[in-house]
């Protein structure tokens, strides 16, 4: 098992820079998510850790050993591909035992290791079948089996659930997480699905355009996004942005939103000019006499909650409220924001201003 440390890693493909100077640390035994939209460099980062790509510059440490330029076969890691990459000319048993054979293991040892893995993954009955006829879930299990059979230092997974049907995904996600908890192996998992990342990960790195935007625990990232990109990318519906001209001083605890005072966590940074107030939809409250008002333009019913879209003087705003609340389109409603949960961003750079709320989360990264 292993700690993995990425330091100033950069990857260029000709004129295109896929990853710019990424740094983060994955602790031993963590289930670590690399999250971002397609083309953000997350897969390239993973492939560099695995040794399938070599970094242009920077260092990668696995268990304290610098492996940046070592071939994949020398890193003692396992990789699960999105398209499984089971060897089509071999049956399930051969696929799973293949990595063992390359290590020079023979006969009884291979048999018992494969049997053990098959038992863990509950695929004993399909061991002698060709991989061609297997269902998506079984293929995924075989791919996992091929990864865990070698007892590697770390598991790298590139959107392993991406090829599965939606209903089966949920199930496999749980299975994967349970498997991880049982084995306690460091796992790095690439996904573009923020729900998957929040649901399964111990820690998340959010990447965009080859840059690490934020790094932390799922709840920290959700509650205290470091940039507007993270705020938008995580959460469904995403964080609301209210753009305004104004200022906030060090130690200031309120902003002026179109003549109405809105309390925010005490700021640790001063800024004047174009700012953005970030509000999560569930932190919007409907009140009868609030100074800040919006007109209901749409209502989406979601079962226990509903998403109400309101037109305000600073653009559209979505609120998540209980379905019990009766709301009519066209209605004017007073709004209040939960002061402890708000973020203020510099609209130019997209970076959040440090405050009493987020400084504990953002200082370490």
């Amino acid at each position: 098992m292993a700690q993995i440390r990425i330091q100033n890693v950069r990857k260029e493909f000709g004129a295109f820079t896929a990853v710019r100077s990424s740094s983060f640390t994955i602790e031993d035994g963590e289930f670590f998510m690399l999250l971002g939209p397609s083309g953000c460099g997350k897969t390239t980062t993973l492939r560099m850790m695995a040794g399938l790509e070599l970094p242009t510059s920077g260092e990668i440490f696995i268990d304290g050993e610098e492996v940046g330029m070592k071939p994949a076969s020398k890193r003692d890691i396992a990789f699960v591909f999105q398209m499984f990459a089971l060897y089509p000319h071999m049956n399930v048993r051969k696929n799973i035992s293949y990595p063992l054979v390359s290590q020079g293991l023979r006969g009884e040892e291979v048999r018992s290791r494969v049997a053990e893995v098959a038992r863990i993954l509950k695929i004993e009955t399909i061991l002698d079948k060709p991989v061609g006829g297997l269902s998506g879930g079984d293929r995924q299990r075989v791919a996992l089996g091929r990864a865990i059979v070698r007892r590697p230092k770390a598991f790298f997974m590139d959107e392993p659930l991406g090829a599965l049907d939606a209903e089966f995904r949920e199930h496999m996600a749980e299975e994967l997480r349970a498997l991880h908890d049982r084995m306690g192996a460091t796992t790095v998992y690439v996904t573009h699905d923020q729900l998957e990342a929040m649901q399964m990960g111990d820690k998340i790195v959010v990447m965009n355009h080859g840059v690490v935007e934020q790094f932390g625990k799922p709840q920290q990232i959700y509650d205290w996004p470091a940039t507007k990109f993270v705020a938008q990318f995580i959460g469904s519906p995403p964080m609301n942005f209210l753009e305004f001209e104004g200022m906030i001083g060090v130690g200031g605890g309120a902003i002026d939103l179109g003549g109405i005072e809105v309390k925010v966590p005490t700021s640790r940074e001063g800024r004047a000019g174009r700012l953005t107030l970030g509000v999560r939809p569930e932190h919007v409250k409907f009140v009868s006499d609030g100074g800040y008002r919006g007109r209901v333009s749409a209502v989406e019913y979601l079962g226990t909650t509903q998403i109400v879209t309101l037109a305000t003087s600073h653009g559209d705003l979505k609120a998540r409220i209980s379905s019990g609340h009766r709301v009519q389109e066209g209605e004017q409603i007073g709004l209040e924001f939960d002061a402890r949960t708000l973020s203020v961003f510099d609209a130019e750079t997209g970076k959040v201003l440090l405050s009493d709320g987020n400084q504990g989360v953002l200082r370490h990264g």
Partner: protein
Amino acid sequence: MSYSVTEPSQRQKWFAGILVVGYALITILPLVWIIATSFKSPADAIAYPPKTFFTPTVEGYVNVFTTRTRLTEEQLKAVGEPQTWYERLVRKDGLVISGPSRFAERFTNSVIIGFGSTVLCIVLGTAAAYAFSRFKVPLKDDLLFFILSTRMMPPIAVAIPIFLMFRSLGLNDTHAGMILLYTAVNLSLSVWLLKGFIDEIPVEYEEAALIDGYTRFQAFYKVVLPQAATGIASTAIFCLIFAWNEYAFAVLLTSGNAQTAPPFIPTIIGVSGQDWPAVAAGATLFLVPVMVFTILLRKHLLRGITFGAVRK
């Protein structure tokens, strides 16, 4: 009667069947003609109207493997009674076998040169195609175009420069020279065909093998090659058929030593009159290796071995 958009109707099936059978008859007829002629006597072979039913004889096959001499009555007596079945067969016409013909030797040359160039083509072609498919080769597109451009004119158009080159290199009328020539002509086809097949194999297989602890070469050998088998088999068949049937260069560049069967077979006809059955027998035997090779590889041509292992 129900209608389906995807299933052909009964009438369409009949029509398609008749077309296929008709086409098969047209393509098979010349083959049947040659094979039938090879078992006819010289008289039957040129009979008009052509004989569909005839008494089969292996005279053609005996003639293609032997040279014969016509002897006078006294000479024949001096030689004595024919000892073997084939000697008796030619004795009917007042001939004796004076020795083996060069057919077996030419046939062997064809086998060496045909299969030699095919093997070389596949080895070089697979390696080149793999590199073009997987690695960042500088000027890749230009190189591929250049490779293909060697086929943009009929190869025989460069016969004279090749002839002169071969003469100064001492490759004229040698096995090595012919293998080299056919390989050079076929290589562009082989690289392009194989690159297409290797492109189809997802690179993740090799990456999986690399991570499983194999070297690049082992990954190529154990994972890519088995999956490229279909492509390699069909490419090999194309290469062999070209090298096997090639006539013009063989006439030009070979004579005594490395001559292949195609330029030799027509010369049979002049040995003793118009011996069509012998020519037909030579042509029939000449068909056999390619046929056997194709049948052996047919399994690979028909089997889609990557089916189902990748979810696309």
